[in-house]
């Protein structure tokens, strides 16, 4: 089998000689039906209801005055400074969390790839943060970053990295970094796992071939590892971008969206609108805008996914 065939490209004229399995006229594949059913029930129907809801003035505390107001919620949205703050916060939180987690996870995956058997436990240990419920991570970091009794604050002051104790989670500049710190700590194992699985799938022959050709560690990384990991990189970062857009427990338990909306992301804002202010019509409108933004983002991602060549490795 040639290398090209090994990478999944079919040779023209190659056809299964058994009866055709692909009935091109089929509308839907049975294998995908259970998934579609679950999604329709749990997501599609409530989503449609929510989009409809966004055109109404629906205040749960005032159930007698529900009325259709068309696009008024959206007009209010554009004038709402908290909304725009939450958008930039969401982008910042997601970008930093995914960026740092991605790099850390990749670095750790590469570092732990060829550990001797006696040190294999290191990789398992590095996965621990992911097993700790995010709520606990939030409270743990809140405690460690406490202005008065937090160990991190204490160490920073005593190592003279900072002059006086900073109230991290009550500070306008430091609340977001604090939350990102906890988030990265919690999520790095995911990237580590994804990249470990992907690294395993790089064919040994290609690596051997590169080594025989005299490639050093760094060149091997750039020209062989990275191209093979491209798909995993794109998919895992997309998953985590969407995950972090939706990240509620960590921020809620750590900072509650404060101080003064400094860590209020879209999720937190919508939660407050829907369940503290009970203004669900407006909350649905904010949610619909979010839907549009994420759809565009996902489409962009998918274009990148599809444009990548089937094989990134040049033929010898």
């Amino acid at each position, binding site marked *: 089998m040639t290398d090209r065939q090994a990478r999944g490209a079919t040779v023209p004229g190659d056809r299964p000689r058994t009866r055709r399995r692909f009935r091109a006229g089929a509308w839907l594949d*049975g294998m995908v039906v259970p998934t579609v059913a679950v999604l329709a029930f749990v997501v599609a129907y409530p989503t449609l209801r929510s989009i409809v809801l966004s055109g109404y003035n629906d205040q749960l505390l005032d159930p007698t005055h529900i009325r259709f107001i068309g696009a008024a919620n959206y007009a209010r949205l554009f004038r709402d400074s908290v909304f725009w703050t939450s958008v930039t916060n969401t982008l910042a939180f997601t970008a930093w969390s995914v960026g740092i987690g991605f790099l850390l996870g990749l670095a750790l995956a590469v570092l732990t790839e060829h550990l001797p058997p006696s040190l294999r436990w290191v990789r398992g240990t590095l996965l621990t943060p992911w097993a700790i419920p995010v709520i606990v991570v939030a409270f743990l970091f809140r405690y460690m970053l406490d*202005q008065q009794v937090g160990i991190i604050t204490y160490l920073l002051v005593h190592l003279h990295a900072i002059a006086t104790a900073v109230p991290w989670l*009550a500070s306008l500049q430091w609340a977001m970094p604090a939350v990102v710190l906890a988030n990265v700590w919690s999520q790095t194992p995911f990237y580590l796992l994804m990249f470990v699985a992907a690294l395993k799938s790089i064919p040994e022959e290609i690596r051997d071939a590169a080594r025989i050709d005299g490639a050093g560690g760094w060149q091997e990384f750039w020209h062989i590892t990275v191209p093979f990991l491209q798909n995993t990189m794109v998919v895992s970062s997309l998953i985590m971008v969407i995950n972090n857009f939706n990240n509620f427990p960590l921020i809620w338990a750590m900072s*509650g*969206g*404060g*101080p003064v909306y400094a860590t209020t992301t879209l999720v937190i804002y919508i939660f407050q609108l829907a*369940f503290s*202010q009970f203004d669900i019509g407006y909350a649905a409108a904010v949610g619909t805008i979010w839907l549009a933004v994420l759809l565009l983002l996902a489409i962009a991602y998918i274009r990148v996914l599809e444009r990548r060549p089937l094989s990134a490795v040049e033929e010898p």
Partner: protein
Amino acid sequence: MFPKLRARRWWPLVLVLLAGLLMPASRPVSAAPTVVLTFVNWASAEPATRPAFQQVVSNFERTHPGVEIKSVPVSFSDILHQLIVQTTAGNPPDISEIAGNDTVALQATGALQSLDGIAPRAFLESLYPSEVTLGRFQGALYVIPWDVAPLGFWYNRTLMKQAGLNPAKPPATISEWTDDMRAIKAKDPDVVPFGLDTTNRSFGLDVNWAFMLAFGAHPLGAHGPNADTPQMIAYLTWVRTLATQGYTLPGKLLGEFRPLAARNQLAFAFDGPYLRGVILSLNTTMTPAQLDATWGVTVLPAGSDGRHYAIPTDHQLVMFKAARDKAAAWAFMQYLASDPTAIRTYTFNSGVIPPLKNATALFPTDMGVATIQGFVRDVIPTVVLPAWGPVYSKAYPAIMTGVQQAASGSGSVADIARQMQAQLQAAY
């Protein structure tokens, strides 16, 4: 369209697992009672109050055979959320514990049962009149008090003496108080002079409301917001002073200062009668006598108008219109509020005050505790209501984020007040 499925050895296992999921969750089996009352509350959620509460429930069920109480624990900060979601879905509980603005907001949705005609006159007359008024909306009674728990001014005599202040004379005015805080901070930088709640919740605004009143700030007027005033600016400046001088810790919930109080690291607190119980449970080496020697309770220092203010954080009980057996539901509500065993088991145990006028006569020992006497004598007469209601629910973020901004030290206080005013317009 469907590929051929051949039974594999492990398919049955998966099916059994999925079938197991379809079984409804098993509930404890009991002899079929005639009435089941659902009671949403946080008393059974919190570790501090759960055991005593469960005791009260079993006492009630024993003395009222045929009634079973199904307690639904919900966290204090999620109560309104839970009740609104359930009510909107057409699935409200029979009775709920509730407090503060949540009560007023809930009442405005029209989901509550009016208690006129259900609550016996004798019972209502046994309550503090101010408590009964608290439960009236547009003339009709909707809410009864489970206990009385206003926020009062606690002062730590030990820390005051240590800082050279007179422990028998707690500060009577805000400016005296700020001076006292400075002295305490100067004496020991590890001590936090005062625990101010600066969180973005309706309860956060409840706490700050008393101070705003003391400074003469009334941000929520009857016809519109009134936040851009010199009085509000004075108040915000005071908050800024507290935060930047280290007289308080910014960004904390009221409850987060209680462990500091238990360690004698907090000099002043604006907290309810339950602080006593919390301190004793945290600091197991402190005896009640030591606590009473250390902590005193009095009225909040007065502002420029010379008046003292206190804010109620009473736990209240409401019945929902959809409750099927209203007589049984009322029996439980009345039991919680006025039955002597229930009061001894739960109310005093949580460190709060029963809503009965003659409580001091009925329970001399429990009511004789020094801090409780401080509340009954000094604090309760100064209780005022914040401007609770649907507007309050929408307005508190604008006000509390303004307070947080002031505490953070950035931006001019005048700008903050102006911004607060602009944001409050949207709430009206």
